[in-house]
């Protein structure tokens, strides 16, 4: 839908920008960009490129802050991340999936601690990547932030693999509790391999305001009629600022914060090379590079 159209446009813009920096002549640039994109496509095919790579591996995406994109630092961080992923099985999960995390800590002694909840947020690139789980326990909303590469994590399980309409479900704190209630003893729901990850079209009904943020202005896709629920005082105050529809057409913003096919292919190549080496050593059969929708 919209997302794929924007990503396609983003790719085109990236290729065009790359070509324009290489050459100055018009015809030459067109020829170069064509050659460039065909070679990229050939590489993507050879590497069995996953189209949803930035969503499955948000930790491998480059920093949205451009002067933190230091190639040496990034490659060192990626090496550490791959090493950790060989030790810990990090399954595919998205914002909106139901995830269980098992941790251990000094205060628990030898015991392990398990928390089940909906993943409401995934943020920060690289080794600092963190995700937040939310659940309602005895009528009390609880959120736990986990750092993906923290060594206290023993196990991560995806109990239900699905996406939601938004990439940030922070509004669940302002929604009725039934929307974020998950049974802590729930049985995992198997995802049939090779089928696309389902997108849950659920529209959440918010509690009456005040809310933690101006959801009627932000307008997440997964919130049912936030504008109708907002109080007249806020409507009067903020109705002029509700013009944020242009943001989805902002290709420059998408280019700056998003990931490029070139970077994705580089990371995929590294991952596959790392796997090949470890499998050849005969120590493990674990796979890091995989996706539920592309599996055979």
């Amino acid at each position: 839908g919209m997302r794929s159209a924007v990503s396609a446009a983003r790719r085109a813009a990236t290729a065009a920008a790359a070509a324009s920096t290489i050459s100055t002549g018009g015809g030459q640039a067109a020829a170069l960009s064509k050659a460039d994109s065909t070679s990229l496509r050939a590489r993507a095919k050879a590497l069995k490129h996953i189209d949803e790579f930035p969503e499955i591996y948000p930790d491998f995406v480059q920093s949205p802050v451009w002067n933190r994109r230091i190639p040496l630092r990034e490659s060192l961080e990626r090496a550490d991340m791959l090493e950790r992923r060989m030790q810990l099985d990090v399954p595919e999960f998205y914002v909106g999936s139901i995830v269980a995390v098992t941790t251990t800590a000094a205060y628990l002694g030898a015991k392990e601690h398990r928390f089940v909840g909906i993943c409401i947020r995934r943020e920060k690139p690289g080794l600092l990547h963190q995700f937040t789980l939310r659940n309602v326990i005895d009528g009390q909303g609880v959120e736990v932030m986990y750092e993906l590469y923290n060594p206290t994590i023993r196990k991560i399980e995806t109990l239900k693999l699905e996406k939601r309409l938004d990439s940030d479900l922070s509004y669940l704190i302002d929604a009725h509790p039934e929307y974020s209630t998950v049974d802590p003893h729930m049985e995992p729901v198997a995802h049939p391999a090779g089928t696309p990850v389902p997108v849950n079209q659920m529209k959440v009904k918010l509690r009456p305001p005040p809310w933690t943020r101006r959801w009627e202005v932000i307008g997440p896709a997964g919130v049912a009629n936030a504008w109708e629920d907002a109080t007249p005082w806020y409507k009067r105050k903020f109705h002029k600022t509700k013009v944020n529809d242009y943001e989805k057409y902002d290709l420059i913003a998408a280019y700056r914060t998003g990931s490029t096919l070139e970077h994705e292919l580089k990371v995929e190549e590294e991952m596959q090379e790392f796997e090949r080496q470890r499998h050849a050593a005969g120590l493990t059969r674990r796979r890091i590079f995989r996706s539920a929708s592309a599996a055979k």
Partner: protein
Amino acid sequence: MLGSPSSLSLLTRLFSPSISSTVAASGRWYPQPAYELSKHRSRPPVMGIHRRTRCMVVDNSQLGKEAHSSGKLAYCIHVYKQGFRAKHMPHATLGDKVLVAIRGEMKKAFVVGANTHVHLRKHGVPVTDTNNIVLLNEEGNPLGTRVTTAIPAQLKTKVDNAQFAKVLAISNKFL
């Protein structure tokens, strides 16, 4: 002159997109992720439990029930903790002792659930939607006989504290 390689490289450096999206001195750029916003500018005034922060009493004491049913919640008036700066009261976090005003009385209480700001959260520490407290009497013992909600398991590290051990003893469920 414009065609010389040095001036060309200077021009491309001046107009390249990477220059225009570096971190400016203002600390704000576009498009900026929410977690990159500095906590030192344009922030809401208070993050954490401080003076006038409303707290929910989660024990079964009569005082807490009355406060809850009357709709006039207990609120923090002091935090019993050494701050970093003289005359600047610190914010209370999980397991800290606070003084609260409740039903016209002043009561000491332990924080057993904190609604922490997104930037200040720690790995694996549960954050509740409300700030939860357990009231203490004058002797420092819990006012109620039971804690009604689940409390974070990290609080078990405070079992050495004689007063807090009594709060742990009356709580039966941990997050």
